[in-house]
């Protein structure tokens, strides 16, 4: 027994760094396969016992030259209906390459920014709640489907408070109760605590999901607006990794870069 254990340990040691590769590339049960064993991402979307589409899985945002919602929720050449203060702040962020970018300070992404991260995220769908596990910064979010309503005047938080419902095969997530400060996208579209988002998730087949996000923030935008459709791609046969904002050595260098670029004026916020 002891010998066997030592042998196994020796094997593990000999394998060295391949442990990470095994964790990142391993067959996950429940994935439809082609004859050669590869995942069949064109298979129909799976369904839960109650007949709803099952959105569970590890997902990543598809980014192309022409459509990169991680950078900007809107296609190039289009503008969100920003109120003047929001337009001023947005321009300042673009001009300075993001002088107050939250993640530089190890602050989290918000909604919908967390969905568009270059890091994958996992959805775990159960009857009463769908859990989002975001790899970037190891954050989570819960979308409740137990019939509760959105809270009235809650303590504002970065990811807000979310409830979900089904409209046919589309899962509609309403979120409110946001804390001001997160960006809607990497270019820096701002929001206030009046933000309400609606995300419409539709799994079109086993490997693909579309998300249509509507931004409603009357303190920052003159009317609700809808982002370009986000294309999520299933990441089969892999696993999330821990990612934490440790050792943020970027900040010191970036603060030197931004020195002198920040206007003397106080920060622009929607409360002004």
């Amino acid at each position, binding site marked *: 027994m002891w010998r066997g254990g030592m042998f196994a340990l020796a094997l593990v040691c000999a394998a*060295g*760094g391949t442990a*990470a*590769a095994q964790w*990142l590339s391993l067959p996950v049960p429940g994935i439809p396969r082609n004859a050669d064993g590869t995942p069949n*991402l064109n298979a129909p979307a799976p369904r839960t016992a109650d007949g709803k589409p099952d959105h569970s899985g590890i997902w*990543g*945002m*598809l*980014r192309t030259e022409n459509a990169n919602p991680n950078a900007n929720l809107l296609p190039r050449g289009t503008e969100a209906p920003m109120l003047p203060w929001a337009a001023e702040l947005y321009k300042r962020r673009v001009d*300075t*390459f*993001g002088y107050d*970018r939250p*993640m*530089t300070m190890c602050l989290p992404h918000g909604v919908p920014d967390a969905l568009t991260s*270059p*890091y*994958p995220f996992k959805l775990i769908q159960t009857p009463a709640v769908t859990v989002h596990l975001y*790899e970037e910064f190891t954050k989570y979010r819960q979308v409740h489907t137990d019939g509760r309503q959105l809270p009235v005047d809650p303590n504002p938080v970065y990811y807000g408070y979310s409830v979900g419902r089904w409209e046919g095969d589309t899962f509609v997530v309403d979120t409110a109760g946001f804390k001001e400060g997160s960006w809607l996208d*990497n270019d820096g579209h701002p929001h206030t605590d009046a933000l309400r988002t609606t995300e419409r998730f539709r799994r079109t087949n086993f*490997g*693909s999901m579309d998300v249509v996000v509507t931004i409603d923030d009357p303190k920052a935008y003159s009317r609700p607006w809808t982002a370009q459709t986000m294309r999520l*791609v*299933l*990441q089969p046969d892999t696993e999330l*990794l821990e*990612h*934490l*904002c*440790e*050792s*943020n*050595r*970027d900040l010191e*260098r*970036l603060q030197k*870069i*931004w020195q002198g670029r920040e206007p003397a004026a106080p920060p622009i916020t929607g409360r002004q």
Partner: protein
Amino acid sequence: MRTGLAIVMCVALIAASGRALAHHSFAAEFDENKPVKLTGTVNKVEWTNPHIWFFMDVKSPDGTVTNWGFEMASPNGLLRAGWKRDSMKVGDVVAVEARQARDGSHNANAQTVVLSSTGQRLFAGSPVQPAP
């Protein structure tokens, strides 16, 4: 460096680079129009979030030695691209293609790394690999 022994580690193809994986804006610090190609000896590797950095001594023709620092993606990004945390070691001789810092300092964002110490070929890739 003997190219026969060289391997290419595409640290950071544009789609998967420090830009795409940036914890901050690539453009805030680095200049796309300032490409540099340097060969030197690694003297420090910091395998840490939010970005891996490594440092190497570069000898110029006149014999002076300059220490350069290179930003790469996060550990998760490089792990998914096939790297291991010990893929690059102190003492390795590497050739780097990078984009230099805007302020002219000896910092750069690494795009490719050619490592002479092993025969292993590693490719970069975004943490999120779109389906074909």
